[in-house]
């Protein structure tokens, strides 16, 4: 009876996961979807604890067995501690640190799967199937764990240069094959020796590091999404081990959804996944072969203020620099002042602006910018012809016309925001330095373009002050 009820809890939980994920695909229902999935998870967790029945190997219930109170204390202690830490971290983290946080939590899940493997190995030496699930879950979970830690450090800025061993592609591939061979051998030979298991565990840790370390910091979102689906896979293997349906559905769902999401992201960046993992993008400083020519025109803050004040329509193009400078609040202020003066203001959101899909939306939503002012690329592009002033804030690659014009450019073919069609273009950045792709930008030499140099936050704050004074 108890275990029947538990199965129903799991069934319920699985359905909430599917429905929740589905709802998360639509801005209107996304929040509720997340809560549904969370609710299903709570049911599954408490069901597992309170509807537990000890079973022997034949699957019969051992009614005499009593779980020692100490175990319950430990479980509840761990859950309580985890809830407090997780809750506070999630509530306190700055919005700009989201990518770090996601990669962190992903690593925790991977580590959890790895620990399960470490604990279960010796109890399952008699079954090849169980052992295969244990080894696979442990290795994948561990890779996801150590990979996520590296991703965290990179996003964090602690490890800000891609570190590349010579021939790292070949080394990594050989390492991976050896790891798989090692795991397969263990499943076949079933060595009753924990030292060997730990050797595999550490090898997996090293592989996770080797896998992630050569990838540029800005490609981390793709990597995290990939590691995300790894952890999903590790959870699914746990499901195989225990014939536990909710771990299976949850794991497979996230595994397949995560894989697709990874590919969707790569597509939005117009790069194949292999290029993200193996490519040396952005680090070799690949530049298109055209020489930039023409003059650069400066503009100062007060001229910018006057120009904007007398415009009918201003489109703001936010980019990574906006996030770095934490200028999302002041840009909203700018928007409100302009709107007060009767200027129509919109934001042009490029799908890969920033360092994370939807980065700009999250950032601007944080500073209370209305959702309907954020216009996606396809919808805003036809509007630039009727725009008086485009203000590019800390964006670079997403407005680089080389994507249209220069077949030799590494970003050639990526869809961009066609800001060149506007009457005036004002670009705010700190210097003439390149953006993420490491290439020069012809836009800055366009006769319509004026450069407004300086840190985004500082410059925008001044601009707002000037506008108020007008």
């Amino acid at each position: 009876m108890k275990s029947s009820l538990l199965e129903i809890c799991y069934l319920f939980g699985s359905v909430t996961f599917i429905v929740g994920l589905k709802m998360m695909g639509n801005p209107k229902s996304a929040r509720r979807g997340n809560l549904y999935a969370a609710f299903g998870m709570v049911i599954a967790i408490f069901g597992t604890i309170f509807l537990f029945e000890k079973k022997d190997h034949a699957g019969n219930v051992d009614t005499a067995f009593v779980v020692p109170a100490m175990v319950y204390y430990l479980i509840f202690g761990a859950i309580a501690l985890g809830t407090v830490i997780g809750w506070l971290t999630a509530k306190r983290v700055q919005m700009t640190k989201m990518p770090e946080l996601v990669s962190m939590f992903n690593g925790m899940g991977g580590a959890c799967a790895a620990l399960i493997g470490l604990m279960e190995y010796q109890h399952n030496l008699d079954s090849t199937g169980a052992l295969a699930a244990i080894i696979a879950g442990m290795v994948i979970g561990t890779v996801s764990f150590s990979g996520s830690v590296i991703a965290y450090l990179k996003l964090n800025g602690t490890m800000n240069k891609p570190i590349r061993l010579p021939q790292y592609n070949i080394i990594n591939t050989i390492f991976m094959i050896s790891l798989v061979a090692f795991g397969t051998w263990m499943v076949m030979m079933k060595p009753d020796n924990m030292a060997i298991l730990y050797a595999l565990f550490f090898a997996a840790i090293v592989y996770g590091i080797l896998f992630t370390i050569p990838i540029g910091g800005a490609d981390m979102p793709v990597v995290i999404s990939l590691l995300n689906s790894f952890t999903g896979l590790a959870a699914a293997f746990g499901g195989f081990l225990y014939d536990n349906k909710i771990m299976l559905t949850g794991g497979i769902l996230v595994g397949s959804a995560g894989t697709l999401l990874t590919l969707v992201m790569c597509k939005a960046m117009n790069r194949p996944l292999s290029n993200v993992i193996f490519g040396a993008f952005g680090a070799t400083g690949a530049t298109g072969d055209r020489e930039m020519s023409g003059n650069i025109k400066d503009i100062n803050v007060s001229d910018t203020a006057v120009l904007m004040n007398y415009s009918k329509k201003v489109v703001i193009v936010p980019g990574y620099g906006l996030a770095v400078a934490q200028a999302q609040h002041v840009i909203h202020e700018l928007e409100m002042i302009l709107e007060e003066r009767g200027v129509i203001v919109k934001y042009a959101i490029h799908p890969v602006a920033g360092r994370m899909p939807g980065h700009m939306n999250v950032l601007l939503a944080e500073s209370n910018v209305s959702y309907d002012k954020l216009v996606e690329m396809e919808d805003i592009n036809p509007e630039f012809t009727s725009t008086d002033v485009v203000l590019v804030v800390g964006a670079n690659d997403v407005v680089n016309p080389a994507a249209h014009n220069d077949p030799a450019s590494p970003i050639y073919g990526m869809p961009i925001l066609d800001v060149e069609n506007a009457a005036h273009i004002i670009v705010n950045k700190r210097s003439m330095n390149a953006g993420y792709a490491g290439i020069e930008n012809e836009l800055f030499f366009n006769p319509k373009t004026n450069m407004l140099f300086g840190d985004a936050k500082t410059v925008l704050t001044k601009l707002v002050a000037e506008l108020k004074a007008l």
Partner: protein
Amino acid sequence: MESLINLVSEHREMLYFVILSVFVGIEVIGGVPTVLHTPLMSGANAIHGVVIVGAIYVMLNIDPSNVFALVLGFLAVLLGTLNVVGGFVVTDRMLEMFKKK
């Protein structure tokens, strides 16, 4: 070959289960607007925290005299909880801001 065919047929329930789940996973994501990629990723991240169910199960079956195992189990449940709670809360925080104002 024959043993492979038998293996597949023996585990057919599981296979249908996996195939159908993969389809659902893929279908559910298809056509999500770029805007929602980050919260979706983080929501999916929270869902794979379901691995905590396995960790709890290990704990409940544990030999209470094995201190090392207890420590590992405690850690596993703790990390799993972090993944679940942190994941859902942070997703909620992001999505809260997506409201039309």
